[in-house]
């Protein structure tokens, strides 16, 4: 379980490559045994953040604390952190067994908790075999790396890092090269490994579904800034801003005006909502999930429109509906299909209307990380 103790803390971390600002003033803490995902589009700075924690990059300013002491200037090989690299970075001059044993072989017998060199060999053997079992690769000891499939290489990369019993495991889009089915399997396996071993995982991905599936906490990053930190449900249900809403799942994002507390106007219609504390007549972003738009008869809908296109998505139909009046293109998910060209009405219940401050990534408000493990 996630403990309250802050294992890693980033304070005001900035990173520039020449004139390019990759990270702006990032504050983030990571708790012991937490599975935290850094989620964002390519180039948002998430990998750089991971590399700073791993010690492969130095922050331009700010500090990284590990159990309260500064990590700056401590090289990767002295950190109790291991990494699963994006392209696995396995040693192809060594076989599977020696790849996994690589880190342990570098340690002294004392570091492994044994007395002699002979015991060290036995201890390494014990740990390597336990890892092979954990990643379900028993019997592959003598195989050469080049003879493994992508999924198998990926498991060896995980085993090679985990065998060192790090405090923290960094994973840089480790499932990116796998096919969908294998990826889903590995997501669940990674999550169960993490719970079984009680190791903190910091996971980088651009795949929002992956983040929602595995994480205790998600930090959504864009333009080198953290946009929102929270548990998956909170991120999905209460996105901080239009970017988060759009990146996590699909969204209809509309311009609206907050008339008063719990009343918002968009598409020339007033809607009851559950958001308070906005200024009177403040322009806001209104976010409505496609599955939250209910299709009703044209005569009873709060809004009306014409179905433009229908795509069958398996579980549901995705319809594009052109709203009357301002012509906004609504994306609507429904299990019942309305054929293209038909007239429909749409209603949205108050708690499915999410109101956000107008904010661009450049002047984003600083994100406060909630201090406790709330649901």
């Amino acid at each position, binding site marked *: 379980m996630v403990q309250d103790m802050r294992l890693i803390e980033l304070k005001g971390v900035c990173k520039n490559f020449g004139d390019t600002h990759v990270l702006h003033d990032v504050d983030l803490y990571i708790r012991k045994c937490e599975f935290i995902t850094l989620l964002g589009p390519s180039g948002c700075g998430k990998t750089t953040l991971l590399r700073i924690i*791993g*010690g*492969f990059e130095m922050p331009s300013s700010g500090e990284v604390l590990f159990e309260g002491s500064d990590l700056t200037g401590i*090289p*990767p*090989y002295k950190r109790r*952190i*291991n*990494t699963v*690299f*994006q*392209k696995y*970075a*396995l*040693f*192809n*001059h*060594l076989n599977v067994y020696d790849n996994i044993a*690589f*880190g342990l072989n*570098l*340690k002294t017998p004392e570091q492994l908790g044994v007395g002699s060199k002979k015991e060290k060999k036995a201890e390494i053997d014990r740990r390597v075999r336990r890892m092979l079992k954990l990643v379900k690769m028993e019997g592959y000891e003598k195989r050469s790396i080049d003879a493994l499939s992508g999924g198998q290489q990926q498991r060896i990369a995980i085993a*090679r*890092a985990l065998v*060192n019993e790090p405090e923290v495991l960094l994973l840089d889009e480790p499932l990116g090269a796998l096919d969908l089915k294998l990826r889903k399997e590995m997501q669940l396996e990674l999550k169960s490994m993490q719970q079984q071993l009680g190791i903190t995982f910091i996971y980088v991905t651009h795949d929002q579904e992956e983040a929602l599936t595995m994480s205790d906490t998600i930090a959504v990053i864009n333009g080198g800034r953290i946009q929102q930190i929270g548990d998956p449900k909170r991120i999905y249900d209460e996105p901080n801003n239009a970017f988060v809403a759009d990146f996590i799942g699909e969204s209809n994002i509309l311009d609206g005006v907050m008339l008063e507390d719990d009343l918002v106007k968009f598409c020339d219609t007033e809607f009851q909502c559950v958001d308070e504390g906005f200024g009177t007549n403040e322009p806001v972003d209104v976010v409505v999930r496609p599955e939250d738009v209910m299709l009703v008869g044209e005569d009873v809908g709060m809004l009306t429109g014409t179905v433009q296109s229908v795509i069958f998505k398996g579980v549901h139909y995705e319809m594009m509906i052109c709203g009357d009046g301002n012509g906004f293109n609504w994306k609507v998910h429904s299990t019942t299909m309305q054929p293209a060209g038909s007239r429909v009405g749409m209603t949205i219940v108050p708690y499915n209307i999410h109101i956000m401050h107008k904010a661009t990534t450049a002047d984003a408000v600083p994100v406060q990380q909630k201090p406790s493990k709330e649901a």
Partner: protein
Amino acid sequence: MKRSWYASPYALWMLLFAVVPLLFVCWYAFTTPDGTFTLSNFQEFVKPRYMGVILRSLKLALYCTVLCLVIGYPTAYFLAGRGFNHAQSLVVLILLPMWMNLLLRTYAMMTLLDDNGVLNAALEALGLGKIHVIGTEGAVLMGLVYNYLPFMVLPIYTVLKKMDYSVIEAAEDLGCNPLRVITRVVIPMSVPGIVSGITMVFMPAVTSFAISTLLSNGKIRLAGDLIDYIFNQSSNPTRWNIGSSFSLIMLVLILISIGFLRKVDPDNEGGGMW
């Protein structure tokens, strides 16, 4: 027309100028001048004056290979390093001497190392006195290293350049300090390049000729010079036979070395030419 026919000009060329001559060499090696079968040509080989030359060739080629490796590996490592922007131009600089004829380069080396040459002029100007280089094994070794160094640098450079940088980061991540990164990962992973470099330096060095003759004023002969000398000995009626048997022995020695190196790099990943 079958695709294999496209290689027929090459096959014909090889047949006429490699296979047929090699058969002649074999014929001469195993016969006397009057055409009867004999192994006596090979017995010549164990005579001390010949054996000494072969051993010296092997010794100098070995020294040359080791020196090339010691000088070439760090160079290749530096050139292949990240964040070094002038690698391409430096590689060209390393290749540049290879665009010139080997004899020209060796003549240049002679002028540099000569008793009244550039090196000694410089030493004298510094008040250090002259040193005698030309005619020593050291001079021959310098000539060999100078000529074959690029063949060591290039294959190692190619392998190191292709190496994924994240492998080095993975080694650091798993606990390697900078020295161990090199000994545990970089060097083992560049073995194919090293093998290729060793082959491409050792083979030509052990059979080289002209370099040694020129840089030793004819005093030091290597295997290549020896074969050359035997063939051109006008007085000896068996010169073609003995020369051929020596050529065959060198060929077998090289085949053995290749076989040995193939064991180290079975996939020939270094892209060696041998």
